[in-house]
């Protein structure tokens, strides 16, 4: 129960405003840059500032004049795309957590030192490999040795099993690449070690009480902070990840729109960017709140 005193309300509001300001300013900068993109389909009478104004109205106001792209409503496209994108991101992070959490918690039991060293060693060898390379190598392994070709098309039409099968390579590539698993594992391991050395945990042990809920509670904040930073990282690289697997998510749509030499689909680009930036905003806001709330030193 948080008693919302004046002090606290002010702080939450401040965090909200700070993150929202970042969101709007980033969107603004993207509009500015987007207007610089050379586009042969735009008549030369339209000046740079008119383009910027155009894009700003699209992104800041939900104006429905620009609501069609091809034969589909932009809102439908973005909805469909975001479903796919976020499935990929969150599933991969879920798998990473499932692997890293027990492995990192093993520090607590102080046994299995050999396993820990082996695990950490292999991880640090594999983790500098970026997602792109992992994806290529994994596709290679599966196609050449397994003679299997999971394509995105199968995902759309298939049942649950096919979908899981198609998701296998992307999720594995994201989980293993760019040190995501390694960062989670290291963080969990370090925080567990820190908690285990706290005097109050030893006192809890001395009273005969179980320590697990205390350890897990101490891990919540660090895990969430790492999670939000990895989500930001994955979103910033979403275009390449989706391109490799031909995954029709938001990033792929952005790439396709920017790639066409003629008229580029600006409302689609801006809509996708809006959704992505909003996710980043959401997670950093929640992270700021949790840092503030779960930090025992700030409890007065």
């Amino acid at each position: 129960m948080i008693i919302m005193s004046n002090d606290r309300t002010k702080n939450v509001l401040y965090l909200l405003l700070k993150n929202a300001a970042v969101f709007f300013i980033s969107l603004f900068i993207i509009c500015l840059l987007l207007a610089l993109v050379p586009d042969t389909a735009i008549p030369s009478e339209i000046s740079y500032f008119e383009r910027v104004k155009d894009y700003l109205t699209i992104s800041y106001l939900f104006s429905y004049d620009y609501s069609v792209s091809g034969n589909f409503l932009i809102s439908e496209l973005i909805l469909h795309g975001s479903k796919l994108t976020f499935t990929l991101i969150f599933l991969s992070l879920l798998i990473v957590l499932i692997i890293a959490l027990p492995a990192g918690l093993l520090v607590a039991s102080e046994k299995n030192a050999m396993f820990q060293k082996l695990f950490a060693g292999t991880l640090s060898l594999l983790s500098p490999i970026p997602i792109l390379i992992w994806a290529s190598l994994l596709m290679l392994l599966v196609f050449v040795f397994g003679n299997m070709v999971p394509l995105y098309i199968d995902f759309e039409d298939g049942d649950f099993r096919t979908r899981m099968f198609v998701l296998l390579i992307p999720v594995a590539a994201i989980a293993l690449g760019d040190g995501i698993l390694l960062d989670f594992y290291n963080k969990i391991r370090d925080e567990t070690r820190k908690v285990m050395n706290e005097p109050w945990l030893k006192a809890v042990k001395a009273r005969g009480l179980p320590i697990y809920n205390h350890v897990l509670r101490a891990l919540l904040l660090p895990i969430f902070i790492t999670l939000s930073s990895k989500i930001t990282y994955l979103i910033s690289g979403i275009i390449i990840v989706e391109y490799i697997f031909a995954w029709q998510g938001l990033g792929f749509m952005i790439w396709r729109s920017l790639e066409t030499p003629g008229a580029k689909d600006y409302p689609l680009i801006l809509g996708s960017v809006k959704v992505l930036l909003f996710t980043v905003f959401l997670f950093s806001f929640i992270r700021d709140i949790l840092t503030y709330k779960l930090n025992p030193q700030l409890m007065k």
Partner: protein
Amino acid sequence: MIIHLNFRFILGIMLLFILIGMNVFAFFFSDSIIKNGTPARPPSLYLFQKVLYHQPIEEETVEDFFSFTVPEEIDQDAEELIFSRNPKRTATVGREYRYVPSSQRLRSKASFWVEEGPSGMKYEDGAFIWTPDTTQIGKYDISLATQMIDSETIRSIRFKLFSDKKPFYFGTNERGNSVLGLMIAGSKWSILPGFIAVLIAVFGGLFLGAYSGYNKNLSSNIVDGATLVLESIPALLLFFLAAVIFSFNIYIVMIAVGLVLLPANINVIKSTVKHFVDCQFVESSKEIGFADNQILYRDIIWYNCKPIIISQIANCFAFAIMVEVTLSYLQFGIQVPEVSWGNILLQGKSDIYKGEYWMVFFPSLVIIMSLLSFYLTGNGLSRLLDPRKNST
């Protein structure tokens, strides 16, 4: 200077030398490095070709046309007589190509011959041999046959054989360019563009971070705000837009890379400086009369931030390589006439379905090697300079 070198640093330096060597090669011999050969030729080493053997060699059982007897008993050994070893798929002009179909014992029970093949290929003394000469370059469809002595059945295998003037150790891609040459040629984009990114990210981060950590005035608040904004723009989108706006000039994209890496560096330096600014010695130094800049740079940064800066430099170079590869892969970076690692990966990606893995595998290895060289060198060097701190 600490003489105790650790393993990572040495390994990293070795890999870095290899990378720089490739760069030098690429700059001096840029056009003649990429040799041309038969398209889609597998790597020459038998080890690498074993991967291909997962694809079935077509095998046919052909009955002797003029025999009216149907073979009833199948000899126990007959199954083994079928070519029990997989043939090598590549041959080099001037070197003997040799294929030993099966073990000694079984060979004596059957006869082998060449059904379809280049002139000069024959079966002699237990092996198919052929020495291609300079006119016999290209892809050949080979068909070799065997017949057991007491049987009417003829078994044959078919495969494709590539012969070229040079032994392409890493194979060739769909256009016939040697993968090794492509890898070396592509390396010229690996180190040089990184310098711009490093300049902006590391040195900009150093000065801005130090300034905002040491002072608490309006400018440092502006720097903080700018850091926040830069952190939240999706990086790849920024690179995209930079590439598209400035017509795929990789150096401008590197400026954007530097800007994207700036916030993290600023934060690290700022937290280090903040940690020390409250110490007693800063106040004492000010009272003695040292200038602010002197305290900041000589005392705080020089003593504490060296390992940080070195690892930042290494990470920036590695990130620059990755950005360049990514953009080329998406066709937004180095455009097609120029060779880059991303381009090679893109060209090879569609051929994986045919089992032609070498176009993607070896460039991936080279990319990993170059990244590792930077990471290991940076890590090792920063450990050397500050052996107390544990870097994970």
